[in-house]
């Protein structure tokens, strides 16, 4: 009976056994004070922890999530298990290894516009828009030492096949801490602070489990 249910579920969700979907819900509906025009970020090294203590790490796990590309917001993890998931861990941004690895392809292709040539490295996230009519522009990257901007977070999950990650940048963009920084475009202290803020905009939508 249960397996019938699972099969029905799998068919309806378009997922086969051994696949898990991670969906990023970007909460950027235009708020009266904030208008977001560009919103792109990397998610890498996704790990699922199952309630039986085992886990799954996606191989070659680098994904560019782009507000303008709805397909990019839905990831399918192949080779995962159908067990109950307890926690998801991922890095917002790219790890230092890929930042020093020369020419790469896929979502890490420098043609994607998330790459600095003059100061080699990936732009881990880009948010551009207007806040209270004032334009802002954040291109946040940097992979070395205390200026590293990749942030790894773990979120509790209660799900089997589909995880919904809610990303809400607006409260952060409106926080008074950011009101003076209208443009952060190079690695450094400011960028690293931005990365600290940005990681708090991720949480799990529990009602969707």
């Amino acid at each position, binding site marked *: 009976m249960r397996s019938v249910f699972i099969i029905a579920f799998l068919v309806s969700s378009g997922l*086969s056994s051994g696949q898990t979907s991670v969906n990023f819900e970007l909460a950027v509906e235009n708020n009266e004070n904030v208008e977001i025009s560009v919103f792109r970020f990397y998610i890498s090294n996704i790990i699922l922890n199952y309630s039986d203590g085992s886990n799954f790490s996606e191989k070659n796990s680098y994904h560019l999530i782009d507000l303008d590309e709805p397909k990019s917001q839905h990831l399918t993890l192949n080779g995962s298990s159908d067990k109950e998931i307890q926690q998801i861990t991922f890095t917002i941004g790219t790890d230092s290894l890929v*930042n*020093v*690895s*020369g*020419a*790469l*392809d896929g979502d890490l*292709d*420098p*043609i994607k516009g998330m*790459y600095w*040539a*003059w*100061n*080699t*490295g990936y732009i881990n996230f880009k948010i551009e828009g207007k806040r209270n009519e004032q334009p802002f522009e954040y291109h946040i990257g940097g992979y070395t030492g205390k*200026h590293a901007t990749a942030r790894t977070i773990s979120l509790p999950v209660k799900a089997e096949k589909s995880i919904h990650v809610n990303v809400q940048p607006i409260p952060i963009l409106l926080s008074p801490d950011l009101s003076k920084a209208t443009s952060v475009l*190079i*690695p*450094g*202290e400011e960028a690293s602070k931005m990365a600290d803020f940005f990681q708090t905009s991720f949480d799990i939508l529990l009602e969707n489990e």
Partner: protein
Amino acid sequence: MNKWFFTLLIALGVMLASFRLAIDTNPLILELPDKWPTPVYTFATNPLTEEGFQLGRKLFYDPNLSRDQTISCASCHLQYTGFTHVDHNVSHGIEGRKGTRNAPALINLIWNSSFHWDGGVNNLEVQPINPIQHPAEMDNTLAAVLEYLNESKEYKALFYAAFGDSTASSKQLLKSIAQFTSSLISSNSKYDQYIRKEVDFTKQEKNGLKLFRKNCAACHKEPLFNMNDFASNGLTMDTAYNDVGRYAISQIGTDSLQFRVPTLRNIEYTFPYMHDGRFRKLKEVLNHYTDGIETDNPYLSKKLRNKIVLSPEEKKDLIAFLHTLTDREFLYNRRFSFPR
């Protein structure tokens, strides 16, 4: 149904993958000079082949990589001058636009751990994205370059021969250019022959070498005559560009006015000198080291805090030695020249 379709796709994929491996490339092994340090660039993810090298060479000499099809890599990196920009203190790009830095010589790059005067580029493979996109250099986009390459039958054949895939991607574009630039090895100057005991130095050259080892070699280290590090050799900040050097990359105050220690190989031909090309003659460079350095300059390298004293005769000897770093075989090597 779906499953069968998938299996079929996978089978096709495997076939294609093995097909790719089956293309015939001619592997190349770079001959590295005896007793030199281990290179930083290892070719681990970019196996050197004759096909990849020749593709990279063609790209290096192709002005169609620039937005208005006028400037190739070689426009600023000319072989006969050690792959630097002849006679320009700062580089000139499309429409005569001026850059802010002197084009460095492209010599023995696989031993460098970073590139550009400020070390901002961390891997030889990704370096070309800079000139391709720079408004004062080629002012183009990677996408436009790939579009051009993918419309060319000739390039499609060359990409296929090198990588088993006729579609040019940025990865393969960059890897093939790196196969060319990594091959630019100069190791057969008179100095090298002297070290290998194949020729002897004149008395003047021998004295020059002695002076060099005493005053210069702490930074311009043999056998590469460079250092994978940054230093201030006491130049005052240039007034035209206010170039802060390494600081722009590291954001660390003490890195202000620090620049990469460049190689002195083929220095006879790579003028003008320094990151802004401020000196045209080696004599001027030596005059800077003996008389141009203010020893209380807070950014000055510790290695230059003791005043360098050289008599006019000694300066001549030192220059005679620097000329022994000229490697004509490298400067005129047909393999590196415009492909015909």
